[in-house]
């Protein structure tokens, strides 16, 4: 069914929020997930490429790789766009969780507000640093009193040749929490156990994590998992055999495997390690999205996350899920990728292998006042349309290029408008972390033209007439400043 949320803010009734009177561990039944989206970057590194370069490691499978122009924020925006496309809820809060925040001090979530076309009154904040931030953001939103957007995103790598590098993955997932008949999965209960121990840690600025001996962490996690799971099921008033799906995840793969067998329940679904790798903070979200893609009404889904303790969330799908039409399913993203990248490209993209720059001036970082003045354009890809003659302008203009009327413009968000390549070039001279760059002149459906970079594309495959869609990217980083803007990529049709 179509979610019943409109753009207009619908006041919430107090009786929908029962936290104060609820039994410990249970939550108000009417709050839940109304929509979601997962984003797995287009590029994959075959693990055999690492073996070929370093002569060690596992040859099976591949890992997803955030492109040179992606980071946790930009991937988070892509996942959130997918979630918001399905249910346009009047978001009040945005919680962004990642262990690889592009900025410190500055709220990374702030860029997401204009990028997603959300109003400034949205409370947007980061839950950063630890992998556990992901489940924290889900809990906070699920227990909140207002519609909220949760974004989980991460870029995982480690020392060359290590298992964090080969088993890691990059990706993002987003969930919109709300209430009412649009809820497709409601939170039944949750439980937690927290333990302070040196299992996995990283000092700010370091690129790879440090790990204690694997068997030590395994013992810590396994001592907590059974009680936490029983706590959650008891609070929900169900037994393990009533749980239809058990998702167990965490970066400690050995503990995850053992925990899964301790909990029992139905046979586990694909953990995506072979196709995507472990996306850390985002992984619980991507696995939950993949489960919801397949779920039927009235199924209980347990999400168990091992990270500095054990967290359990129990969801129950509603009848609304049978009519839910999501954005691109996780399974579709598993079959749509490019795996031609080399290990050295991967190392360059992650900043581990420093290549000689072109003999050209480095690009200047964005200046703060113009970036703020042009925020709707830069972050929200909002052009303008002449109210006199209907001509679209990108970037927005004050004087119409067609009829010459002055200040007769209305803003128009164009991020979701598709376009067609009018002409293009492959530039071998321009500065890029991954030369050459491809620039196309794009004519947008319904009017408007813009010249911009193409990404996630093979230079030899571009031709005039190609269909493209817009994607939020980090163009480059200069002078310690990330330059976010939009690029076009070949259209990935939603099935």
């Amino acid at each position, binding site marked *: 069914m179509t979610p019943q949320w409109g753009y207009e803010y619908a006041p919430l009734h107090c009786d929908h929020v029962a936290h104060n009177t609820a039994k410990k561990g249970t939550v108000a039944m009417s709050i839940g997930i109304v929509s979601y989206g997962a984003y797995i970057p287009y590029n994959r590194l075959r693990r055999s490429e690492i073996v070929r370069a370093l002569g060690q490691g596992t040859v099976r499978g591949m890992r997803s790789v955030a492109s040179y122009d992606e980071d946790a924020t930009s991937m988070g925006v892509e996942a959130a766009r997918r979630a918001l496309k399905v249910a346009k809820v009047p978001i009040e809060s945005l919680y962004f969780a990642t262990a690889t925040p592009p900025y410190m001090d500055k709220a990374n979530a702030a860029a997401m507000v204009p990028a997603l076309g959300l109003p400034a009154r949205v409370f947007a904040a980061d839950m950063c640093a630890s992998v556990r931030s992901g489940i924290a953001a889900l809990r906070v939103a699920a227990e909140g009193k207002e519609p909220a957007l949760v974004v989980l995103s991460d870029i995982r790598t480690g020392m060359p040749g290590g298992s964090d590098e080969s088993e890691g993955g990059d990706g993002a997932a987003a969930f919109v929490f709300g209430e009412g008949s649009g809820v497709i999965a409601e939170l039944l209960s949750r439980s937690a156990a927290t333990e302070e121990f040196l299992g996995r840690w990283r000092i700010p600025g370091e690129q790879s994590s440090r790990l204690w001996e694997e068997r030590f962490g395994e013992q810590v996690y396994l001592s907590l998992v059974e009680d936490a799971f029983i706590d959650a099921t008891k609070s929900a008033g169900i037994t393990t055999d009533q749980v239809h799906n058990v998702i167990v995840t965490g970066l400690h793969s050995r503990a995850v495997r053992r925990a899964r067998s301790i909990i029992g329940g139905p046979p586990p679904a694909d953990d995506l390690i072979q196709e995507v790798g472990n996306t850390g903070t985002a992984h619980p979200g991507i696995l939950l999205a993949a489960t919801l893609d397949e779920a039927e009404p009235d199924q209980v889904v347990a999400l168990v996350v091992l990270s500095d303790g054990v967290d359990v969330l129990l969801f129950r799908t509603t009848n609304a899920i049978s009519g839910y039409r999501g954005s691109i399913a996780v399974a579709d993203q598993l079959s749509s990728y490019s795996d031609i990248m080399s290990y050295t490209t991967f190392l360059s993209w992650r900043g581990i292998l420093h290549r000689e720059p072109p003999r*050209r001036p480095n690009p200047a970082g964005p*200046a703060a006042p113009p970036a703020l003045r042009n925020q709707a354009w830069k972050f929200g890809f909002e052009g303008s349309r002449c109210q006199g003659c209907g001509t679209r302008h990108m970037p927005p203009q004050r004087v119409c290029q067609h009829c010459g009327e002055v200040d007769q413009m209305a803003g128009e968000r164009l991020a979701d408008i598709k376009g067609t390549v009018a*002409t293009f070039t*492959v530039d071998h001279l321009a500065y890029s972390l991954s030369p050459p*760059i491809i620039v196309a002149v794009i004519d947008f459906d319904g009017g408007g033209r813009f010249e911009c970079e193409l990404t996630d594309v093979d230079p030899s495959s571009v031709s005039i007439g190609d269909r493209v869609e817009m994607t939020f990217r980090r163009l480059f980083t200069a002078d310690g400043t990330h330059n976010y803007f939009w690029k076009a990529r070949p259209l990935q049709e939603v099935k």
Partner: protein
Amino acid sequence: MSSRGICDKVAVVGMGCTRFAEHWGKSVDDLLVEAFAEALQSAAISKEEVDAFWLGTMMSGYSGMTLSRPLKIDHKPVTRVENYCATGSEAFRNACYAVASGAYDVAMAIGVEKLKDSGFSGLHGTVPPADGTAAQLAAPAMFSLLAPAYSKRYGIDEDQMKEVLTRIAWKNHYNGARNVRAQFRGEVSKETIRCSPVVAGSLGIYDCSGVADGAAAAIVVRAEDARRYTEHPIYVKALSFVAGPGTGPTDPAYSYTSFTEVVASAEDAYAQAGIVDPRAEIAMAEVHDCFTVTELVLMEDLRFAERGAAWKEVLAGTYDLQGDLPVNPDGGLKSFGHPIGASGLRMLFECWLQLRSEAPEERRIGTIARGKKLALTQNLGGAPGEAVSFVSIVGTEPSR
């Protein structure tokens, strides 16, 4: 648009032009001093006889003092102008207007650019602080957008297009090989051009103009005074400059097969000079061949070929030294490189030589002997769809 022009009101009576090269041993000041001195000598006048100066430079210096300091110009008006790659032409245009207005008797237009001190290849410049959303394209990439659009529109396959562009580079290097002032003074084989490494789109290194330092200068006086300075002045028939609205990259109606700004400035110039059929009436043209594909498109925008037919004319040799309408007989930007402030005046310098039959035998064009008396310069700045364009027409006769 009312553009009356100043046809036959002013004339060029002296010119100077340095060799264009990687002048590691010469500064901006050195280049200015040399072009300045040669222009004065050519007109047989002294520095004191020049009443006002227009200096064109895009990024080699600011204000009139860039010229007055090295030349020790004593409390006279020196105006520094900039208009992208048409900067040199803009200096000339303003000097002409100053003389035509009666404000001054003798004016100098001088252009200079020192590109090779930056340590970078290609053009570069500082841009005002911005929001970071502008596409980071190098110049070859911007102009390479023309090639696939032209090919598709006129049904030319990739190999044919490569042959056409190669022919343009080959011709300009052939001409430049016969010019002591050119940066590149050797002929280049079509095979070498065709197989040169790709820079952007279908453009290889030999489809791009070079990067050089240089300076050029012209002395402008009232037409009636011209013969006091030289037996063979060249008279200014037309000066047209337009800045486009920059809407090509934002308007789906723009085709990427034409420079609308060039069409506008050319038609304005033809009207000023009373030219009806440029292809038949003009003896030669110096055009802005920053890239081979640019020259191809310019042939149509200047009405030197029918729409969609320039590629055939190129292959037929129409624009060769002995063709119907020689284009870039001095070797063009292809052989000279493009020191931005100087290029427009360097183009005029070749008109000066050819119209006065002073060009060396080995690159002398055939149309002068056949009685044609008009030459055209066309200077372009910006990129396809968002450009400034300058067109001038000069001739040997004071009135037609």
